């Protein structure tokens, strides 16, 4: 249980993000919520790849103990690569969302969801 703290942190981060997206009325806060969910998912991926006592999977002047016991002594590299991809995707989405928000503010003069809802259901 206590060793699962990273996973619980993931869940807490996803909750906080979802709370912000579902219940906050400010567009910027919604975007912050999406960013937090994304960090939670990234943390989830990284946590999946951790092997107890592992070092980075890089052989440039790696400690000889780790090389001798490889691959058991190195953390899993695939989740790190996936997280890298996911971070860049997050930056792109964030850039687009923020520029949309700037335009919405220019048009409506407010960031409150309740006031800008011009599209009918």
């Amino acid at each position: 249980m206590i060793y699962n703290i990273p996973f619980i942190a993931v869940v807490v981060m996803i909750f906080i993000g979802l709370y912000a997206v579902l219940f906050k009325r400010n567009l910027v806060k919604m975007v912050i919520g999406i960013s937090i969910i994304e960090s939670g998912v990234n943390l989830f991926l990284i946590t999946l790849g951790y092997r107890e006592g592992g070092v980075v999977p890089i052989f440039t002047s790696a400690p000889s103990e780790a090389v001798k016991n490889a691959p058991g002594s190195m953390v899993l590299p695939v989740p790190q690569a996936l997280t890298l991809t996911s971070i860049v995707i997050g930056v792109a989405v964030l850039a687009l969302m923020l520029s949309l928000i700037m335009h919405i503010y220019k048009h409506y003069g407010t960031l409150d969801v309740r006031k800008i809802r011009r599209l009918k259901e």
Partner: protein
Amino acid sequence: MSLRTIVAVVMFSVLAMFFVFTALMLSFGAPMKTEMDDYIIMHTQNETGTNSGVTTIVFDYRGFDTLGEATILFAAVSGVIMIFRRVKK
């Protein structure tokens, strides 16, 4: 309490249950299976000549993902420039 709030609360709690169970079922520090990663760690030096396991995956084994990632950045830049263009009214 509007309808929207109730729906949001229900969705929120269902998702919460899912994620909590997920967190309790996984174990930290001991991956269940590591076959693919072990292969990559052991073969990164003689297959691709790269010392860094992560870079090998990013640019060689899963290079196509990285192309997609570069595409996403390209799309975001194009999108931002397009959104901020001067519009003739």
